[in-house]
């Protein structure tokens, strides 16, 4: 995917560019901006597809119509002059106004035109009001509901992904040093356990630590009522984080360690590593300069791919652990058929995915000198 970009850029830059540093940064900037726009386009198209899917059942129209009627009914009922009129007359007025408004918003026009308007609104998360779900502050605006649920998800996901990533990387390096040991064999034998998703292990963890032992809470983000003291609050948060993060670790750990270990082993068989070893360089230096450094782009790629998986997996893990994040919100929206919120979740997940991919590409470009210097793309 990234490869073609490199190749095309390579073609339209003259070869003598490589000699100066500022040009390299210019290339980086151009590369980043290009990536940004191509990803933005991808999100647009992705969202448009989502809207098409949602609108097949006419749900998008329904949301808009309901919104219009809501607004106008409210407006009429607030008007003191209107209150004097008989209900039948008021209803007629409402119907007329709704019709005018629908025509103004183009609801009587063919879908193709409307879909773009809706796309524009969706991209700004301007999806009107949720049908059932409210934010903690009592608001029904989808945008507010979603933005309120974002931080808990980010907290859980970043904690889970960083701890899984760093621990498995360190452990894999350790194993690649001692490969063939009993520990190594155990990890290999256990790596098929990663075929089960985190929620699966979550259920077991809940059973053991919450139901049988009663050490940790069944779910939620903080104790109820939330502690006033910030330190107590943080501790309570930490206590609630343990099980979901642990579920994530168990689910991803063995396969991830196995993957890294194998990757490092293959790399440590390269000739230049052998040479470094023959020169008598200390093992730590070899690891840092001859194994980690050249594999950094791959490590980053796989981290971002893991993040992408995480965003999706969050939905179910949050549901199992009652974590008040985006996933849990989507689950509740599913149960109450809250269409605006469901579409809103799609938008926010598309943004999160695109942002992850963008970040990946950016860091990749920073780390991989081939992108900066334009001396050819990475091997396929």
């Amino acid at each position, binding site marked *: *995917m990234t490869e073609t970009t490199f190749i095309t850029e390579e073609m339209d830059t003259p070869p003598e560019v490589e000699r100066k540093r500022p040009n390299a940064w210019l290339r980086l900037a151009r590369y980043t901006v290009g990536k940004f726009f191509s990803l933005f386009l991808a999100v647009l198209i992705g969202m448009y597809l989502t809207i098409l899917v949602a609108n097949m059942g006419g749900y998008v129209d329904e949301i808009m119509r309901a919104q219009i009627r809501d607004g106008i009914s409210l407006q009429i009922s607030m008007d003191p002059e209107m209150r004097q009129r008989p209900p039948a007359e008021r209803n007629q007025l409402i119907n007329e106004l709704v019709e005018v408004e629908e025509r103004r918003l183009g609801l009587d026009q063919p879908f193709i035109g409307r879909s773009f308007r809706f796309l524009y609104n969706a991209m700004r998360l301007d999806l009107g009001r949720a049908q059932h779900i409210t934010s903690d502050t009592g608001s029904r605006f989808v945008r507010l509901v979603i933005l309120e649920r974002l931080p808990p998800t980010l907290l859980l996901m970043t904690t889970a992904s960083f701890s899984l990533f760093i621990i498995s990387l360190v452990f894999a390096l350790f194993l690649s040093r001692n490969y063939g040991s009993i520990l190594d064999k155990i990890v290999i034998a256990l790596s*098929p356990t990663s075929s089960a998703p985190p929620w699966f292990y979550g259920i077991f963890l809940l059973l053991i630590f919450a139901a049988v032992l009663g050490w940790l809470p069944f779910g939620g983000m903080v104790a109820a009522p939330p502690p006033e003291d910030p330190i107590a609050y943080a501790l309570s948060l930490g206590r609630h984080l343990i099980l979901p993060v642990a579920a994530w670790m168990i689910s991803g750990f063995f396969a991830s360690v196995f993957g890294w270990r194998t990757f490092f082993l293959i790399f440590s068989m390269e000739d230049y590593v052998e040479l470094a070893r023959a020169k008598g360089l200390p093992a730590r230096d070899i690891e840092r300069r001859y194994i980690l450094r050249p594999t950094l782009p791959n490590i980053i790629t796989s981290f971002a791919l893991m993040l992408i998986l995480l965003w999706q997996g969050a939905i179910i893990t949050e549901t199992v652990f009652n974590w008040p994040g985006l996933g849990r919100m989507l689950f509740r929206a*599913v149960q109450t058929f809250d269409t605006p919120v*469901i579409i809103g979740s*799609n938008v926010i997940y598309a943004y999160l*995915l695109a942002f992850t991919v963008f970040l990946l590409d950016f860091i990749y470009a920073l780390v991989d000198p081939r992108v900066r210097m334009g001396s050819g793309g990475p091997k*396929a």
Partner: protein
Amino acid sequence: MKKFFTSIKQYPSAIVGLILILFLVVLSIYVVVAIPYDQAIRIWRGGEDVRGDVPRTARPIYVNWFTPQKLPTTIVIDSADPGAGIEKTRTQITDDMWDIQMVLPFDYPYDGFPQEMQLILTATYEEKNPFVTLTWYFPDGERIKIADVTSRRNETVRFDLQDRLLRQLDGVPPRIALLSVPESDPPEVRQGRYELHVDTIVFEEGSDIEAKFVSMGQVHGIAGTDHRRRDLLLPLLWGAPIALAFGLTAALGTTFTTMFIAAIGVWFGGLVDELIQRITEIYMVLPFLPILIMVGIFYSRSIWVLLVVVIALSIFSAAIKNYRAIFLQIKESAYIEAARSYGAGNWRIISRYLVPRIIPILIPGLIGAIPGYVFLEASLALLGLGDPILPTWGKVINDAQMNGALYNGYYYWVLQPAAMLMITGLGFAMIGFALDRIFNPKLREV
């Protein structure tokens, strides 16, 4: 093929995986033959005609093997069942009154109290309802009257709802009081042989009555039951063929379509290749699960519809990049050149020369992908988007979650389907893992 088996023998985990899969396949075939689809659906969906004498959320029978306390099983004594050996004595009292006496005896060797106790009466009469007196005999010969009932054609006498009996027992529910040591507090079980006397007076010559005593236990069947009195054995068994069908079809569908698209892109190159890569980029930011959820809500919850959507959403997955790299190498091979020189068409080269070469490389990934899809189905069910008709493992876990199974201590409800999922997941993952090492020599060295 022989070589394949000798090489797979080097991996004990692959053998274990093969055994697990074989077990699942045999189980699936047996289930589909023994309980045909229609019948399974009918039992699972329930209805008046299938509701048996099954307790609610009863634990599986094997719980009793591990605890010193023996929980009661379900006891059913039916006078209509010739095997039960219930004697019915009929004596004429007056010209138009007959007395039918039945004794329903049972042993109670358990340490817990039943969940519910009831007597189901089935009477045959023209106009005049029979009059039934129920008396309970304790092991020591003492007795207590349970109720007087004017029986309709189908009459269910629930012991716990008999007000007079309840008052007589000082408010202790009859299902407990009738089986406990007198004056014990908290109630202790009095083990021994109990009798329920059903004394009926009928007012017509041809009138008759049958009685069925049901004491619903706390353990039932080898898999327990759920909140709707359904035996969990059915979904546990039927989950296997459904999971296999779903996982296999999804893995085959996604792998082959993805590979084929990669082949087309590589072969035609240029604009086609560029387009495919752009689409892959868009697919990368498509929120897979939320879209799937949306389809589940707006259109259909049938897992076969979702299966199609899963395949459609996975066509342009990141795997295309891997296949592309391999195809790029194959494309340069001499035999492709030869095929082209004798004038083979594009589609012929793709389907006959490019694709077959990659299939051995494909298989480990294909098998390794199956558990992912099996768990995906379970995940959707967990979100409440399970197929409304089919009994699947995910559906059972979802039901359990919704009814607070872990919180209320119904561990079997979650653990059994989870174990089945684990068997499936591990089985395929182990084989896929071993195959990966067999087909990728570079992995074998390390």
